[in-house]
């Protein structure tokens, strides 16, 4: 066969020039290690946005005029429960100024009691009075503070800039995509650090507490927690190393696969830097996955070599034989992983695409490090006589156990196993259908509920009428649309209908503000809180609203309806979006269009929809890639089905587990299922690749399976358990995201292993009827 000829040829030249190979690998590793030290955590807001989604087209169109969705809220609270004291106002003023002058902040959009655009109007007998809430001659004495309090009430900023119970004040800011000083994309994580050091550390005292939320802060906290991830990697590596030693009882055979897997990680990180990528905090687990997959293949390699050494071969021949035996199945497994991960590129969200590149790159380099470098390195190992004898000793107990296990390949057991699998699958499928899209909880799901960030979120939602969870419906209309009663009235109707949607906390738009101003023109009489039909009166009511409020653009052809939500749970957003679409269609026409959507919740709506739309195709593509490669290598539909069916059952069960654990399908969790397929496919391919040739030669199934277990079963079993133990320590992580991933990966390592050892032979019992 030409494939065999190719492998032979490759094997021959590889082992003939072992030193050259080693030098090449050493040089590459050194260079990439040097590059890998430059790797940066990188988390730009726009990476998390599905830019091609129709909502995001609206978002990009209006970003210039109305600011983006990348906002931060800084609440400062006074321990006394009342902010109206000199000390607090001094802190608030300085914090406001510091925020304004923090690079990356859109200065004109910084809002607090101290921003010049915070003004009030009031009605007096002879007309209007008005001015800044904090007057120019403000002195922080009892009189001055009482006046500010009164002005704040008149300005209607209670609930927005001042807490409902007057215990806190708010500074809000919108972030720029590019740092105006450097013209480079804004370094979100560094920005979050500045918030922590220059704002929180500076103003947090016994009297004043500082609470900061918003995307940038959340990512900063995740990145902070991600540093702890490194320690968990360390623990996982130590555990794995120890287990590998227990498995092979040879220091050299332990060190080599671990070292090669670590080299794969180094290459991956180095290549990412070379290609100009960083690592997103949400992808921080990928290097460990690469390590895990590397170990899985490495253990197969040392297992195979060790067995051959025991059979009397010298190290070089044994390594060479293992290389030849494992290059195809290992290569196929790794290639299907690579292709599978690459399919994630179809999802048009930056952070998932980066993950696709990160993961597929990592898996591809394992082909080089663990299927090529590892056997070459092993060929230099000098195995002691004692080792040879120890391994050669027939392990009666193990063989007995393997023989017992091989009963799974008999029809009697197989029927039971398949029935149980079918039941599990049915239950899993039903559960997996309940999987929710998006975030299921208030706050940041990547962080623990008792984390500072989430506590700050709860405090702010509790004490203020606003939060970062708002969606803007952009009303695009004709120039000077705000002078047309009909248009303003429809926007007003839309707002009212939206306010009545469950999950909406409040809403504001130019018409709703204009109505209050119209009442103010009529002596503050609420019975005049209407949109005047007369254009002049309407102009009078709406022109008092400045564009800096974000409620209109310069010619009022665009007017957002800002809808504040109680939370950003997927179902809340979905309900609000559905209602907005329905009412927008009813009230809109060719001239006046209710366009979804901007604002943080608008971005989430788009992301949820993109993720939801990507879920099915992603699975199709991943499986298509794996099936194709299995078909190519096994040249057998039966063998392919025997590998793929258990894999699919595990995918479904993993999805069911996500439902059970209340993990929603988001940008960060979507790829996990695809990654799970990558982890799982190795086991099945290794087991089946030894069996398929023997089955073709007519060996009875149970016998063939027994041989496969003897040869590779221990490595499969061992890998599954070892990696599961390694990741299970993640439940102690400070990042909720890592805890969730730890549970999911532990599950996938174990259950995929069981799938290959239990379900695969049971399927074989029915697929290869002639071999009974």
């Amino acid at each position, binding site marked *: 066969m030409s494939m065999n000829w190719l492998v032979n040829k490759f094997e021959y030249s590889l082992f003939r020039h072992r030193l050259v190979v080693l030098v090449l690998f050493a040089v590459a590793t050194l260079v990439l290690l040097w590059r890998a030290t430059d790797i940066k955590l990188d988390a730009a807001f726009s990476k998390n946005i599905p830019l091609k989604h129709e909502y995001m087209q609206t978002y990009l169109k209006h970003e210039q005029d109305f600011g983006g969705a990348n906002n931060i809220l800084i609440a400062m609270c006074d321990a006394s429960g009342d902010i109206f004291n000199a000390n607090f106002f001094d802190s608030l003023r300085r914090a406001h100024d510091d925020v304004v002058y923090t690079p990356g902040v859109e200065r004109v959009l910084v809002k607090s009691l101290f921003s010049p655009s915070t003004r009030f109007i009031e*009605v*007096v*007998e*002879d*007309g*209007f009075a008005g001015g800044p809430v904090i007057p120019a001659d403000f002195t922080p004495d009892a009189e001055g503070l009482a006046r500010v309090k009164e002005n704040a*009430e008149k300005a209607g900023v*209670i609930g927005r800039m001042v807490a409902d119970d007057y215990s806190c004040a708010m500074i809000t800011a919108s972030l720029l995509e590019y740092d105006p000083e450097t013209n480079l994309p804004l370094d979100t994580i560094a920005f979050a650090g500045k918030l922590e050091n220059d704002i929180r550390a500076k103003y947090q005292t016994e009297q004043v507490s500082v609470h900061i939320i918003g995307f940038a802060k959340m990512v900063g906290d995740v990145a902070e927690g991600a540093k702890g991830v490194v320690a968990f990697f360390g623990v996982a590596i130590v555990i794995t190393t120890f287990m590998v030693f227990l498995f092979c009882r040879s220091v050299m055979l332990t060190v080599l696969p671990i070292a090669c897997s670590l080299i794969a990680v180094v290459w991956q990180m180095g290549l990412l830097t070379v290609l100009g990528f960083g690592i997103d905090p949400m992808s921080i687990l990928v290097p460990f996955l690469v390590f895990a997959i590397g170990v899985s293949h490495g253990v197969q390699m040392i297992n195979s070599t060790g067995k051959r050494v025991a059979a009397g071969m010298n190290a070089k021949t044994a390594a060479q034989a293992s290389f030849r035996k494992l290059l195809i199945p290992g290569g196929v497994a790794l290639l299907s992983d690579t292709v599978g991960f690459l399919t994630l590129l179809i999802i048009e969200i930056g952070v998932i695409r980066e993950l696709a590149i990160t993961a597929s790159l990592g898996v591809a380099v394992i082909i080089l490090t663990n299927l090529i470098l590892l056997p070459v390195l092993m060929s230099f190992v000098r195995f002691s006589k004692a080792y040879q004898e120890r391994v050669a000793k027939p392990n009666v107990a193990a063989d007995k156990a393997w023989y017992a296990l091989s009963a799974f390949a008999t029809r009697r057991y197989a029927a039971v196993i398949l029935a149980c699998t079918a039941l599990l699958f049915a239950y899993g499928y039903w559960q997996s259908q309940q999987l929710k899209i998006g975030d299921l909880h208030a706050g940041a799901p990547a962080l623990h509920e008792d984390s500072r960030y989430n506590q700050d979120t709860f405090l702010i939602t509790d004490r203020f009428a606003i939060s970062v969870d708002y969606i803007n419906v952009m009303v695009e209309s004709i*120039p*000077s649309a*705000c*002078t*047309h*009663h*009909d248009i303003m009235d429809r926007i007003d*109707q839309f707002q*009212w*209908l939206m*306010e*009545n949607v*469950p999950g909406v906390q409040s809403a504001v738009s130019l018409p709703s503000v204009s109505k209050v101003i119209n009442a103010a*023109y009529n*002596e*503050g*009489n*609420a*019975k*005049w*809180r*209407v949109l*005047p*039909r*007369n*254009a*002049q*009166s309407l*102009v*009078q009511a*709406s*022109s*008092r609203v400045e564009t800096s409020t974000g409620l209109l653009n*310069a*010619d*009022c052809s665009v007017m957002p309806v800002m809808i504040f939500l109680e939370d950003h749970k997927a179902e809340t957003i979905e309900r609000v979006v559905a209602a907005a679409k329905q009412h927008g269609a009813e009230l809109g026409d060719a001239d006046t269009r209710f366009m979804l959507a901007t604002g943080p919740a608008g971005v989430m709506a788009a992301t949820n929809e993109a993720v939801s739309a990507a879920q099915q195709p992603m699975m199709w593509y991943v499986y298509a890639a794996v099936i194709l490669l299995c078909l190519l290598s096994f040249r057998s539909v039966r063998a392919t089905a025997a590998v793929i069916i258990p894999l699919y059952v595990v995918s479904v069960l993993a999805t069911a587990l996500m439902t059970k654990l209340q993990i929603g399908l988001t940008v960060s969790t979507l790829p996990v299922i695809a990654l799970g397929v990558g982890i799982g496919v190795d086991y099945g391919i290794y087991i089946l690749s030894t069996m398929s040739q023997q089955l073709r030669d007519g060996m009875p199934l149970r016998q063939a399976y027994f041989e496969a277990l003897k040869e590779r079963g221990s490595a499969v079993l061992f890998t599954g358990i070892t990696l599961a133990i390694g990741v299970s320590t993640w439940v102690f992580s400070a990042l909720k995201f890592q805890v969730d991933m730890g549970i999911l990966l532990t599950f996938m390592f174990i259950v995929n292993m069981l799938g290959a050892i239990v379900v695969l032979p049971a399927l074989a019992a029915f697929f290869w009827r002639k071999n009974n």
Partner: protein
Amino acid sequence: MHKYLLAGCLSALALTPLAAAMTEQSALPPGEAKPAFMVPLAAKSLLTDVVEITNGQFAAVGDRGHILLSQDGTNWQQAQVPVQSLLTSVYFTDADYGWAVGHDATILHSQDGGKTWQIQQFLPETDKPLMDVYFFDRQRGMAVGAYGMFFTTNDGGNTWDKAFYLSLASVDDQEFLAELEETDPEGYLLERESVLPHFNRLIVAGQQILMVGEAGFVAISEDAGESWRRLEEFYNGSLFDIHRTQAGTLLVAGLRGNLFRSTDNGESWQDIALPVSATLNSIFEDDSGKLYLAGNAGALLLSEDDGLNFVDQSQADGRAVLNGLAIAEQVLLVTEAGVKLTTINKSE
């Protein structure tokens, strides 16, 4: 007067580029009556008036054509209403017959205790609100509102006739109008449309009808509205409610906490100092003669001495209270944030 001040404000506004771009067209858009949305938050929207139809049956009206009915003051059901205009007042002559008025000079009528409503008048092109409605019986009634709008009916509202009483204008304006009628009949008709102040409230007390409005306007009719006498000005700000107490005292309340008291049927008025400076929207009384004042910024005041002294019982939420009713030990308030049933600590 208020209108001239507005013009001043307008000229200041014209400085903004937006206003400049907007002055080109000013034709009034035609409005069609659209039925009010039936929504869960109707009872939490801006409400302007509340009445007791019969024992333990309440009706409240307000923003966006909201009319709500309740048996207990706590649970409210929204009625089907054919308009979305902001309603300002509601009146029932008996358990079945009722009228509600509001913006767009809307007059609605119900014959089934408020469950269903029909349009009797809807004039969006006027762009003026009616502010109050009163019916002597099922046939004879009147509705008043902004810019001196005054409608009467003798057939239960099937036809509404526009009324104009020269006596309701200020003395200066009366002279001016008389002259204009001679020289420029067309101009006279036009001027009539805007010369009168806003009429904010109309009450019937015994044989008298009392009306208050903009710029210190108070008027009395002794003959069921056939003729009117405007009282001499004692205050130049807007008045929003007038009330005759059980003891026969007259109280008028208005802008920025202004309250005036008269024990001689309006001949002389005494300025009552109050502990709040918010605009007062309503005066109401319970069976025992306790008086309540309700107003903007949550203002609520209580008097147990026929309106001489008031105790501040303002609501902490700061929501404007538009009107109220005293029922048993509680007060039923309609506010800018909907209905509010609350107990007043009367011992204070």
